[in-house]
């Protein structure tokens, strides 16, 4: 279908410290004991998109991610990994791999997207309207767990809303503003508003970071606007802003032709294109291009920015905050279990056969216990994910938490709403509530933490 797929896998995201460490880049954070990147890759694989370019920030992360992909997707996907410098931004990352882009349209997917919306819909919308960019929007995720709200992280997440303007048919993007810029007022372009007549302004939509770009346009914008760093903050708003006074050389050949043939207005090609244009219902772009009386000698150049709005029945969340991380983990083994790819037991949980449970230990529904993990007696696990090869003592309570791999938990610990990274040691009687424990950290016996972020000092 002449689409090229670029997966932006990020690097060592700052917002996700302490979950992200030198050994675990953002893309490899486990969601239900699988790296989050695998959800995107599997979604693409299901849709028969098997030639991918994965762009990773920093060399070391690229090595890790490349290593993981090659072990997990041998024989299934044709993946190329490109390493780009850190802090280059999403636009910068695409700029760096510019010369590898050859297909007529580029599908850009964020590596931290966990969703079940087939990318085909975005691509199809893109093709149907011949748009320069098509973005996928989804409704804002309901943040925070139902019980024991982790208030520590919540206010951070609250700021992240976007103001998005749509035309009445909900097909075209008229206005984009990120949450931070909206503090004072929203400025809407008059020309767009005049052309469309009506604009729906929504604040309940989230940019899912799945875009289809026309390659020529993307490359042109990236090359001309050197300062552009981010697709979402710079490139997309730019394209949306300039949609009625396009400076882009859209299908450059054609416009040239039209220019040459202007004098010979009886040219069959023009008649043909006019005939086709007349047959289709014009969008506001075309009406605007033709001018107020439906006819002007030099049509204004326009381009289209489309959206696809995922329906509420689809699951679509990005893993970009710690809160989102625990939300996604909870959902994937809970509400959105079809994404996990595991088969659930009758008790609605997943316990690896090699896991060992002590006597009187209960594992509730919506839980997951990785292979080789051992639990002592009288433990209780609710709505939590426990990784591989964990050793958990007796009398441990784990609720609403994520415990990664090779974690040792001493007797009598209580963990609630927390994230415990790999190789962490919790000594006896540790009480954690709404905490994040970075990899390799040792929590001293008997200590109590609430809403803290514990990590080793970076050397």
């Amino acid at each position, binding site marked *: *279908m*002449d*689409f090229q797929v670029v997966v932006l896998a990020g690097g060592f995201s700052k917002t996700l410290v302490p979950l992200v*460490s030198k050994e*675990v880049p953002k893309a490899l954070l*486990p969601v239900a*004991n*699988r*790296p989050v990147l695998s959800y995107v890759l599997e979604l693409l694989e*299901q849709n*028969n998109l098997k*030639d991918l370019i994965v762009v990773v920030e920093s060399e070391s992360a*690229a*090595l*890790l991610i*490349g*290593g993981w*992909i*090659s*072990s997990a997707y*041998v*024989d*299934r*996907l*044709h*993946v*190329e*990994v*490109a*390493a*780009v410098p850190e802090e280059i931004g999403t636009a910068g990352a695409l700029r760096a791999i510019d010369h*590898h882009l*050859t297909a007529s349209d580029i599908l850009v997917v964020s590596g931290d997207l966990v969703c079940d919306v*087939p*990318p*085909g*819909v975005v*691509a*199809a919308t893109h*093709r*149907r309207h011949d748009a320069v960019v098509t973005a996928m929007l989804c409704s804002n995720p309901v943040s925070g767990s139902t019980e024991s709200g982790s208030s520590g992280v919540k206010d951070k997440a609250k700021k992240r809303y976007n103001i998005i303007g749509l035309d009445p048919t909900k097909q075209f993007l008229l206005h984009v503003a990120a949450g931070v810029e909206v503090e004072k007022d929203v400025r809407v372009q008059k020309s767009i508003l005049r052309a469309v007549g009506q604009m729906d302004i929504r604040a309940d939509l989230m940019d899912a970071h799945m875009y289809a770009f026309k390659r020529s346009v993307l490359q042109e914008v990236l090359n001309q606007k050197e300062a552009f760093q981010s697709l979402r903050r710079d490139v997309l708003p730019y394209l949306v802003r300039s949609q009625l006074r396009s400076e882009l050389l859209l299908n450059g050949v054609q416009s040239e032709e039209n220019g040459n043939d202007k004098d010979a207005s009886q040219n*069959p090609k023009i*008649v*043909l294109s006019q*005939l*086709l244009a*007349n*047959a*289709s*219902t014009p969008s506001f772009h075309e009406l605007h291009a033709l001018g107020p009386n*439906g*006819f002007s000698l030099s049509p204004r150049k326009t381009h289209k920015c489309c959206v696809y709005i995922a329906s509420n029945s689809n699951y679509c969340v990005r893993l970009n905050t710690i809160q989102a991380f625990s939300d996604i983990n909870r959902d994937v083994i809970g509400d959105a279990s079809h994404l996990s790819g595991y088969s659930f037991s009758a008790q609605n949980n997943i316990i690896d056969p090699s896991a060992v449970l002590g006597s009187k230990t209960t594992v509730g529904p919506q839980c997951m216990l*990785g*292979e080789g993990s051992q639990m002592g007696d009288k433990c209780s696990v609710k709505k939590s994910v426990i*990784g*591989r*090869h964990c050793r958990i003592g007796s009398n441990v309570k784990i609720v609403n938490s994520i415990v990664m791999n090779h974690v040792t938990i001493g007797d009598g610990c209580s963990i609630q709403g927390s994230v415990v990274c*790999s*190789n962490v040691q919790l000594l006896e009687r540790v009480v954690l509530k709404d905490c994040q424990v970075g*990899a390799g950290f040792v929590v001293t016996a008997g200590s109590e933490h609430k809403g803290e972020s514990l990590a080793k000092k970076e050397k």
Partner: protein
Amino acid sequence: METRRVPRAVSDPKVRQVGFFAPGAPPDRSQSGPPHPASSSPPVSEISPSGNSLSPVMIPPPRHLSADLARGPHFSPAAPLSPMRAARDSIPVGSYNPSEFVAPTASEFTDDALSPNWTARRSNSGKFASSLPAGGFDMSSLKQNNFPASSLTTVSIVNMPPGITEKDGGAGVEVQKERSKTGSKASLKPLKEQTTKAERRAIQEAQRAAKAATKGDGSKTPAASSGLGSSANANPGKAAKASPQKKDNSPVAASEKRGSDRPQDKDRKKDVPHPRMQFDDKSRVEKAKKRSVVKQTEAKNRVELFRHLPQYEHGTRLPELESKLFQLDPVHPAVYKVGLRYLAGDISGGNARCIAMLQAFQESIKDYSTPPEKALIRDLTSKINSYVSFLIECRPLSISMGNAIRFLKSKIAKLSLALSESEAKAILLSDIDRFINEKIILADKVIVRHAVTKIRDGDVLLTYGSSSAVELLLIHAHELGKNFRVVVVDSRPKLEGKLLLRRLVGKGISCTYTHINAVSYIMHEVTRVFLGASSVLSNGTVYSRVGTACVAMVAHQFRVPVLICCEAYKFHERVQLDSICSNELGDPDMIAKVPGRKEIDSLDDWANSDNLQLLNLIYDATPSDYVSMIITDYGMIPPTSVPVIVREYRREHLWT
């Protein structure tokens, strides 16, 4: 598309041609012998006898070859990370022990990049049939590739043999090194032989698997058609959907995928749905559903009289098709786009749809290359057939499109076998261009030139809907300085007249706009009625946008001449007396809902009520009695002369 109908002489009793025709009646146009556009019937083989030599063994082309070559030297050769990683398969992926992740970097291996795989394939060629289509591999290794700046590292290749132990890899490296010293070309040869053996074997297995699969399907069909219920019928569709994943589990893994793509392709062209399928025939509908690309949910409460026409729940089809974008390999993107736009209603109007389709076909022919051991004529025809069946699923073809497809196919069939591929393609492309120019654009010009003589100063012209020919006519007459007024009659739900009105007013023509309810009132002042047509049938019936018949009848009653502007390529030899037996049903929601007026949406949940049926007809048939004159590119003719045009000019122009 309606070739299948018996093109009877008009003198036959008319009544007999109205009913529901049995499909497959032989066309009596044997001397021109075009292949049936959408049928798999034997005539195809008449055209290219050489096609019979098609060998049963189809060797899949190297899969990544083109991709790798196209990307050129930017890409490093496939770096052999995977054998190394695979050796450590036991390492849990999620365990982030740094020491385990000291992954073998690509740069370590650039020199002897592929050797482990090569040797592995050599020794186990039978076993690793899956390594088969990795042709791109061999090529990329021949090039001495260095890493350019900011290069991509291939970390995973689709068809790499899994599970090579590290030892194998290491040995392979050495062997390869030695060999490369002695001469790389010599070392290549035995390898290739080996792979072809493996290929053959894989293909055999794949074919066996495919056969078994089709058998399984076949055994299901009687059960399905005997009415086991929808659940049984849903299964095959689901299986087809899930097939990409399922295939991986089968013993022949990757190679089977390639192998079975072909049989599917074949099946597709055989199963091009009958263009005039009777949709009240349940078993046929079920069969058609199974092979259809677009999942189609039949609308529930359909009007009794129109049960034989396809009607789907419109809301469900577009998203379904959209989500499958990447799974529809055989459909060319351009064709796909056109289909999508038909389905979404972005393109309408006979000429525009026809041109859009032809242009999409042009694109696909440009990108077409004949697979090895196939004849262009046969393969391209089957390709076009599959495109056509896809388009039919999106929206039933118009008669103009059917004629254009017939034209294209006859052109393909007439290509001489001696032509090279590029020559043949160039001929076809220019043929299509010629068709568009001569049959549509020039024809419109001629029609306009004829028709403009019928416009006098002071005339009040009435037109209905939006016809491209009539629009050109009005604009041309205005440019000539004629002094006239236009009445644009429109109707819900499409309100196409509004667009026409907008353009006419933009040109400075004075217009009156009204809806069809008021046509009898406005007809008093009208002096001429100009109408467009989707088709003109050989008994003079004008098949056009619904409402045309009403306008023509009112005009007839008021003794206002009715002039039909229609290009001759839209003429059809079929005879039709009513608009029931052949028509198209639109989205019933369109008439149930009034956009922008929530307060009168009383039919909101009409689908839930069993005793309410909505009918949104697209076309109607205007009897020739109400038509004064048909203006076509061959001149102005009475409706009774249509068969002459169909008979004489069709043969001369369309089939040569």
